[in-house]
């Protein structure tokens, strides 16, 4: 018996809860403390605050509470979410959490409900109130009201008259507005607290100046140019209406700066005397040996106002003199070409050697030389100080260097878009297209669906052909063919004797290369299909000047191979080809030059 009794006692110890009977839980668990807090602790009408409770106790107590609020709004008894009502003045509301297990235990906190402010009005204004298409204006709003009203507004824009077809774009937070379409726009600031209260402002958007000019591909002034696109450029004596129009200036996105051939021995059309010479600190004229890859041009640096389409250059940033520095090739006001220039390459300072009345360089750089010509251990053979009949290399400040004229336009100054039609297989006599200034500044120069390819500091990107990457590649309207290393591809052999600059495959070669941003952010490489034909065969029709199938060899240097996408690349590109200038953003996009897009 004794043995049995011990067994029962042990069993009851192990099962203490069950042994105690049905009411043991209330008998052994208690609530000791209930706390409450709400976040945020201060709100206004119609705002909410979430209240939470902390319940302490002994045993298997219940944490469940019931919520009540003294005034000023309603609280969900279960969830603790307080919603402020409308109060006539700022009110301290007591929020109480009561234990469901033991209703004698509760905890409270205080919540401040501010009197609802009233928005009585919104006024808005935009400065400047009149802009051109593509420019920016910043709109600001002032909200009037009583009590604790919200000063915040939302922004919207709508076209109200004069033919604009969209509302433009306005940043809903900053209120910065721009549009590519001319017209009258109503900008509306809407109170966030009371959307029925709004304030209007008017922005008048005038059409930008005409930013589009025609260009032509023809045989040029020498009658034998191949794949040269030419523009007519007007240059004026700064601050005067004395101007000269020069036709057949080569459109060149591979160089920077306007260069025009002087009348006289150089065979050009420009009268140099209308343009003041750029001078150094000693008032000595500046000469320039401009280096192209295939030769140099020698002449003066002079100041001109450049007009193209409706665009007129202003003053170069950082310069104190009017006009844009341009090169006047063959300007007899500077001495003859120094030997340090002639030793670099062949001379292209005449019409016969240049093949055009000038070169319109609109590449990705701001200046033709940049910082290398500003300072260093030795002045390069580019800019010269000329006195006493001789010229010696000199450093020259950025604002005095030959400058990208597009950058000096007041608007439409962040790059260019070139559009040229398709050229049929075998070539044609002439095609005409467009040179459009600005990128994303007017309705005719948006990036649209074009893919952007960023360049490196050398204005190069990567083109892979036949499996070999060429890391010093570029797009250049001033090169007149696809120039690329043969890269072991069959039949890519140079022509014999006269056309050695070009390939002469026995059959038309359909080829593919892929372009890649230098910064490697483009995940989708830009595959380009192109054809290369036999240059001797193509040139046999001497009246043809435009050829889409012209290719030629290029340097095969390892690590810096070059695929130069010359003018044939521009033919028939649906989006055209964009060339964006360094440091210049494209409004409404994340893109900043330098880049190409097509």
């Amino acid at each position, binding site marked *: 018996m004794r043995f049995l009794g011990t067994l029962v006692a042990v069993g009851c110890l192990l099962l203490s809860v069950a042994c105690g009977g049905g009411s043991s839980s209330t008998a052994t668990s208690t609530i000791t403390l209930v706390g409450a807090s709400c976040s945020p602790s201060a709100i206004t009408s119609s705002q909410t605050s979430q209240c939470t409770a902390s319940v302490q106790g002994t045993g298997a107590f219940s944490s469940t509470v019931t919520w009540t609020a003294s005034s000023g709004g309603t609280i969900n008894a279960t969830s603790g979410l307080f919603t402020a009502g409308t109060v006539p003045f700022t009110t301290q509301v007591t929020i109480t959490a009561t234990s469901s297990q033991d209703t004698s235990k509760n905890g409270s906190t205080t919540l401040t409900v501010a009197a609802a402010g009233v928005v009585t009005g919104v006024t808005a204004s935009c400065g400047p109130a009149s802009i051109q298409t593509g420019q920016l204006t910043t709109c600001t709003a002032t909200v009037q009201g009583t009590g604790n009203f919200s000063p915040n507004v939302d922004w919207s824009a709508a076209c109200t008259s004069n033919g604009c077809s969209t509302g433009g774009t306005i940043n809903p937070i900053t209120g910065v507005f721009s549009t590519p379409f001319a017209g009258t726009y109503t900008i509306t600031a809407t109170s966030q607290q009371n959307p029925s209260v709004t304030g209007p402002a008017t922005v008048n958007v005038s059409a930008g100046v005409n930013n589009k000019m025609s260009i032509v591909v023809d045989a040029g002034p*020498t009658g*034998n*140019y*191949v*794949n*040269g696109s030419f523009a007519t450029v007007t240059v004026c004596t700064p601050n005067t209406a004395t101007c000269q129009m020069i036709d057949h200036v*080569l459109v*060149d996105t*591979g*160089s*920077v700066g306007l260069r025009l051939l002087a009348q006289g021995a150089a065979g050009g059309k420009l009268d140099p005397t209308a343009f003041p010479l750029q001078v150094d600190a000693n008032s000595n004229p500046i000469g320039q040996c*401009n*280096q*192209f*890859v*295939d030769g*140099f041009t020698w002449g003066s640096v002079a100041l001109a106002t450049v007009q193209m389409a409706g665009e007129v250059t202003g003053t170069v940033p950082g310069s104190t003199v009017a006009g844009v520095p341009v090169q006047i090739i063959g300007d007899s006001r500077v001495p003859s070409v120094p030997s*340090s220039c002639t*030793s*670099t*390459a*062949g001379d292209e300072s005449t019409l016969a050697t240049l*093949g055009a009345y000038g070169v319109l360089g609109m590449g990705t*750089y701001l200046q*033709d*030389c940049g910082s*290398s010509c500003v300072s*260093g*251990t*030795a002045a*390069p*053979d*580019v800019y010269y100080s000329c006195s006493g009949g001789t010229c010696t290399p000199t450093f020259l400040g950025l604002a005095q260097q030959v400058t990208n004229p597009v950058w000096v336009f007041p608007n439409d100054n962040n790059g260019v878009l070139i559009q040229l039609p398709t050229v049929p297989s075998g070539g044609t006599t002439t095609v005409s297209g467009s040179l459009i200034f600005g990128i994303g500044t007017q309705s005719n120069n948006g990036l649209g669906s074009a893919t952007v390819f960023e360049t490196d500091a*050398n*204005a*190069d990107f990567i083109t892979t052909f036949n499996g070999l990457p060429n890391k*010093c590649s*570029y797009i*250049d309207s*001033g*090169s*007149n*063919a696809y*120039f690329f290393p043969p890269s072991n591809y069959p039949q890519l052999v140079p022509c014999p004797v*006269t*056309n*050695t*600059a070009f390939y002469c495959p026995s059959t038309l070669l359909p080829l593919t290369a892929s372009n890649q941003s230098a910064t490697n952010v483009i995940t989708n490489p830009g595959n380009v299909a192109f054809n290369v034909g036999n240059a001797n065969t193509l*040139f046999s029709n001497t009246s043809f000047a435009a050829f889409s199938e012209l290719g*030629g*060899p*290029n*340097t*095969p*240097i*390892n*690590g810096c191979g*070059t695929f*130069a996408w*010359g003018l044939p690349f521009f033919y028939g590109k649906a989006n055209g080809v964009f060339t964006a200038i360094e440091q210049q953003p494209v409004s409404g996009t994340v893109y900043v030059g330098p880049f190409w897009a097509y």
Partner: protein
Amino acid sequence: MLLPSVLLALAFPAWASLGDNVTTVQADKAHMKGSLRSVAKQNYVKHEIQVPTGQIVREFVSTDGTVFAVAWEGPFQPDMQQLLGSYFGPMKQAVSFQQRHGHGPVSIETSGFVFQSGGHARNFHGRAYLPAMVPQGVDVSEIQ
């Protein structure tokens, strides 16, 4: 084999033109005003000059002292007349002797002289060599 792999400037005072004998052109020493670095390869020595204005020019000299190739890169064109010597004139003539007019990189390939000049303003590069004088066992792709 007597040459260490890297020789410092004064070990090679001469700088010669394409096709010349490297030992005969003492007068050119100061012309480029650059710093010289020379590297011995299997069948030739590569002399590299860093020009103060940023260009790098290289000359390739065979074991008999003949400059059989030159190469260049940098923000400006090198003193091409100095580099090419007697080939400078014919090079210019070949560039201008084209049936049709245009601009772009230059490539001249004849049995006796190869000239390839590429790039654009601020980033020029190229090379020239004499195919008949390239030492046996040297691949022209080394000329750069």
